[in-house]
């Protein structure tokens, strides 16, 4: 269980003023849920994720994971970045095994586990290749496998599929949904795409910029159906889906400075 309480992050801007990237945000991420944060560029989504990952200190408030305060990066929170951060000098399997290496797992054992995970993301045949011989989508799958290898309590994903073409993106969404259905891992997922948010989230939170706040929260169940059927078509044409999508779109495109919802 991840609990975010009144979290604020303020950056000093170059002109001396303060940027309220996050303003008193509270959010719970329960086990077995996928929380997707969606919002316009600059509304503090990455700031929120980086604070949970421990890359960024909070100015105010607290973040607790299973009752423990977060103040630095750690292996209990797996991160998948938008840009892949694989090590070019290590083979794909050793990249996936990196976290296990840090945890002191012996070489053969960690490679065996890494191969299982590569199998899970459908890249078993690429285990011994260097990462730069893989396509962007494949690298993102390796990044996902690497984050899963140490079995973290929560998975943090900052626009992981943002740079992918729409076909690859859909495959990756299917993969994530099926992995979630199998492992029940709690996930925080960040995206620009409202459709992606609704397809993947059990909970969708909408954020607004300046100051960065959560302005609305929706419960959605489409990901269960998606994980089962692997077919996005019927979901996209579901009247409930369309209604939610339009509601969220209206929220995001509402002109700034007109007050908040709720």
């Amino acid at each position: 269980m991840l609990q975010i309480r009144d979290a604020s992050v303020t950056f000093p801007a170059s002109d001396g003023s303060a940027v309220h990237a996050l303003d008193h945000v509270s959010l719970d991420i329960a086990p077995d849920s996928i929380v997707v944060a969606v919002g316009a560029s600059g509304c503090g989504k990455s700031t929120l994720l980086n604070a949970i990952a421990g890359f960024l200190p909070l100015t105010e408030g607290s973040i607790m994971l299973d009752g423990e305060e977060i103040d630095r990066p750690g292996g209990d929170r797996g991160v998948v970045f938008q840009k892949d951060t694989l090590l070019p000098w290590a083979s794909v399997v050793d990249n996936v095994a990196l976290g296990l290496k840090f945890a002191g797992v012996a070489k053969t054992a960690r490679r065996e586990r890494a191969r299982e995970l590569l199998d899970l993301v459908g890249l078993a045949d690429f285990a011994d290749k260097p990462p730069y011989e893989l396509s962007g989508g494949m690298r993102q799958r390796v990044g996902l496998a690497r984050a899963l290898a140490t079995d973290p309590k929560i998975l943090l994903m900052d626009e992981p599929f943002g740079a992918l073409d729409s076909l690859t993106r859909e495959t990756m969404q299917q993969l994530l949904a099926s992995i979630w259905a199998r492992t029940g891992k709690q996930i925080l997922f960040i995206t620009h795409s409202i459709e992606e948010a609704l397809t993947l989230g059990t909970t969708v939170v909408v954020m607004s910029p300046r100051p960065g706040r959560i302005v609305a929260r929706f419960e959605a169940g489409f990901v269960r159906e998606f994980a089962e059927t692997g077919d996005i078509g019927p979901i996209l044409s579901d009247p409930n889906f369309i209604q939610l999508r339009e509601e969220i779109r209206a929220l995001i495109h509402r002109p700034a400075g007109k007050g908040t919802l709720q």
Partner: protein
Amino acid sequence: MTLAADPRAVFTHVQPAPKLRRQLTNEPIKSVSSGTLLISTITLLALLALWFVATQLGWASPLFLPSPAEVLTQFHAVAIDGYADGTLIQHTLASLGRILVALAIGVVLGVPLGLLMGLNRWIRGTLSVPIGLYWGLPPLAYLPLLIIWLGIGESSKIVLLSLSTFAPICFSAQAGVRSVPAERINAALSLGATRLRLFTNIILPSALPEILTGLRIAVAAGLSCLVAAELIAARSGLGYMIMSAANFLSTDVVFVGLILIAILAFLFAIGMRWLERKLVPWKGKI
């Protein structure tokens, strides 16, 4: 000749041109480097031919420009009988020994200090001042000072050369550490890396390409310092041989020395390329 005999023959007329085919299959395109190799070889031969013609037609007096044949004869003579208190091999080994020792000192001191400077603000702030100060000076300007301090023996030359190889290696190691992408470090930390693991598994390999670039610069700086120092103060080495020959206007021996230094520089360049291929084959990827 029947087409059916060799099934591949049927398709020969639709196969793409060799150049195109090489791009279609994934084999590396070598034509770029071998293409320049051919051009460079031709240029080199043309220069040699020009040299030959110039001396043959007497464009310049042999005192200024000895003929290739004379240089070759001298080469042989210096190699066997020696010149300026040593054979060619001895002079070459003396020079080579100096630069290798200086490179070793530069690496042993420069890499760890550079890494520390990259990691720690205080060390960087403190050390960058003296290193920056002396690195800005032309080495030959402070060679006299080194000779006053250390005498005219080997030590003043080794110190001079080590100073010239140390700075580029140190600065590049520092730059290598500073250029590690923040996301790569964050990724490692969220995979549970300790500080030591972060350094050995992430920062050091990330900095390696930069360190090798620094080594390349160090080789060039060391070579130019080496010969200059030997011209001024030495009892052996290719620079010393060249200077002695020049004093007696033995231009042909000067040429022998120059050619050997050129060969030495060329071999170092090949060695560096080999080292990069061995250590950082992934350089520039991702």
